């Protein structure tokens, strides 16, 4: 009688199967795609998406959305790079910490707007998306921080190598594990699910919506902060346009991973697989000689298809429920 659970599990498994089939297909046309180096590059590329999508996941879980993630990445990435530029002696780990705190602060401003200003998340973050991007330009005076202005150790931050995996992959893994634990086994994690599943019922048992909003936007901001530092160091450049449009990628990863856009349902493993799926698509297109012009188009088609599949699965589930309620 575990059919519901199986169904939920199935969608992650289906997605993994799809990822494998896709990879195999691409590999047939372009042998070498699956070669260790390339795969690790893809996972490396996707690690940042995974981190930020997990933050987005918490916001979507409550029925909200965070449109400011790209701008937070840009601002915290720019701040970190400039700190590195002007204080080359500061240990990179401190720079990473500062970048994270900057992201956390920007995220908590979103939280304040939503929790206390009563601004709907989509509007609040639409506003801060522009504001934070504006901050970035003001801070940098429109200038870039380029590779030769960064220290070697800063640029090596995401690289490293421990047990065959880069620091970037390790940090994505660590964040995933921590966040899965947080969402499943802590009071706050449960409260986020509760608010998303049924606001009124949650309020009746004393869950504070304000607190939950502060938590989710702060988490999303902090993860963007880490992502910002990783982004600028990995690409050895801090530009003002960093991560433009990235918010839509993170939403897409969540939708693909089976997170209910209306809130209340979804889980991090799905989001991770969803992000990996998008990462592979993006990397595979150039390999199979698809014009990069098609990239956005295909991504859009995938997100819409995922949505249709969700709706169909929901309908099937409803039918099964009707049958089972008779028990």
């Amino acid at each position, binding site marked *: 009688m575990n059919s*519901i659970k199986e169904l939920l599990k199935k969608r992650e498994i289906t997605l993994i199967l799809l990822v494998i089939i896709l990879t195999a297909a691409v590999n047939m046309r372009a042998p070498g795609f699956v070669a260790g180096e390339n795969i690790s590059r893809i996972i490396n590329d996707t690690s940042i998406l995974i981190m930020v999508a997990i933050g987005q996941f918490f916001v979507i879980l409550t029925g909200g959305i965070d449109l400011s993630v790209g701008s937070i990445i840009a601002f915290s990435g720019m701040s970190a790079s400039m700190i590195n530029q002007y204080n080359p002696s500061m240990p990179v780990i401190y720079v990473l910490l500062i970048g994270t705190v900057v992201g956390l602060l920007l995220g908590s401003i979103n939280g304040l707007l939503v929790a206390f200003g009563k601004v709907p998340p989509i509007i609040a973050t639409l506003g801060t998306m522009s504001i934070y991007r504006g901050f970035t330009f003001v801070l940098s005076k429109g200038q870039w921080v380029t590779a030769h202005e960064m220290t070697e150790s800063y640029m090596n931050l995401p690289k490293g190598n421990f047990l065959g995996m880069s620091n970037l992959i390790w940090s994505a893994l660590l964040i995933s594990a921590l966040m899965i634990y947080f969402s499943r086994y802590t009071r706050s994690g449960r409260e986020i699910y509760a608010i998303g599943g049924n606001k009124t*019922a949650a309020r009746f*048992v004393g869950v504070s919506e304000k607190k939950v909003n502060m938590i989710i936007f702060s988490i999303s901001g902090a993860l963007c902060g880490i992502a910002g530092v990783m982004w600028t160091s990995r690409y050895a450049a801090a530009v003002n346009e960093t991560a433009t449009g990235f918010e839509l990628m993170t939403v897409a990863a969540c939708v693909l991973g089976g997170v209910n856009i209306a809130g209340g349902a979804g889980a991090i493993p799905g989001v991770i697989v969803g992000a990996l799926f998008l990462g592979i698509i993006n990397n595979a297109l150039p390999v199979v000689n698809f014009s990069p012009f098609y990239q956005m188009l295909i991504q859009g088609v995938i997100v819409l298809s995922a949505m249709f599949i969700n709706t169909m699965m929901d309908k099937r589930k409803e039918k099964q429920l009707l049958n089972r309620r008779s028990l």
Partner: protein
Amino acid sequence: MSEKILELQSITKYFPGIKALDGINLNIKEGEVHALIGENGAGKSTLVKILTGVYTPTSGKIIYNGEELSFKNAIEAQETGITAIHQEASMFPELSVVENIYMGHHLKKNGSLDWKGMRARTRELLHKMEIDLHPDTPVKNLGVAQRHMVEIAKALSIDAKVVIMDEPTSALTLREVEELYKIVRQLKKENKAIIFISHKFEEIQEICDYFTVLRDGKYIGEGVVADTSIDQIVNMMVGRSLDQMFPKAVVNIGETVLEVNGLSKAGSFKDISFQLKRGEILGFFGLVGAGRSEVMRAVFGIDKFDGGSIFLNGIPVDIANPKTAMQKGVAFVPEDRQSQGVILEQSLTRNITLPIIDKISRFGKVSSKVERETTAKFGRMMEIKAAGWHVNAETLSGGNQQKVVLAKWLATEPEILILDEPTKGIDVGTKAAVHEFISEMASKGLAVIMVSSELPEILGMSDRVIVMHEGKKTREFTRAEANSDVIIKAATGHNEETKG
């Protein structure tokens, strides 16, 4: 007069696994007000949905004006002349009265909308119904009663022959009810057939000519209202003695645990005082909008109040939010379990342990073992029928979802249990089980407040009854003093008698 206009012959409706209607017969005549009587879950709503084309019957015949009918959708039913006025009026609040009346069947002239004609026709209709309303008023500015009138006007505008009124008076004040009766009589004069759904007997006796009783989806019987006593109807409706429905145990009532003094909230309730004792079931009766739920929400810290004080075990307390209330041993089971109590897409375990997540956590981690044990303990106590504790709440029937909500609150191990309409919308069997459970909890020393709009439930279960009307406490009765007559009078604002 009295031509037969609508006839249902052994209508049966299956939903997957459930027989919602089983051989229903119904004969409706022109110019007749026909009461459709039955408890919640008796099948009235399903029957209305069949009559209005929302559902298709599995078997049976609908004969209308001598012809057999089968509607494919709601619009077809409306075009035939059968229309329903719903409990919660389905209106467009931002649009005007005219726009609401003609939504879906706009009058046209030369290919464009004929607003002039529609406005004139609306004025005519409202005049005929003797309602003083401007056709251009936005519906959001109207009161509940006026909205009802607009719905009725809408039914008339499409020249309905059969008008179904689904508990039309449940949200009306006494004066508004009188106005509704006037319109019903007017409709009757125009030879319309009216199906009047209600479970208020005074109302049925006042306005209805004929009745049909349903119970558990079955046709039980019919008769002329004037020739039938209330007792006879109750017997048909409930099908069992009241003792079985309300297994009230004799309990030793203990000391006062909750005292509320002069509680007021502007616009909701005023100067409410009462005491609640250990082992007692205190019934709160009143019409919809009397302010009972609002008082309870204030006591539980969901809403703020302006004045008055609350004492728990003799100590004054400041309950600022539900969390404090829970810590102080108060539990509140809200009225609408789907929207206020259960999180459908989450497991029973998560639902039941949500209020006590602090208690079952150690160093910030929820203990899975304690969580499972707690769920199993309270789930079994409530006899929840489910495939397991890991299944989502949405897989359960309405009655079992209600039990999940109760289990959730019991898990907080409260001293005071506030139940708002504990059996609304659940079937008769589960109802009896919930009553038995409430009685058992009280006998174990729990103090229970039961807010209910069902008079038999109030009379059957309460040790004491407090009656509210328009935000004020009108009377307080002991179990011995309480009977339906005096309670209804107090609830409708007659013989107001303030008690200290």
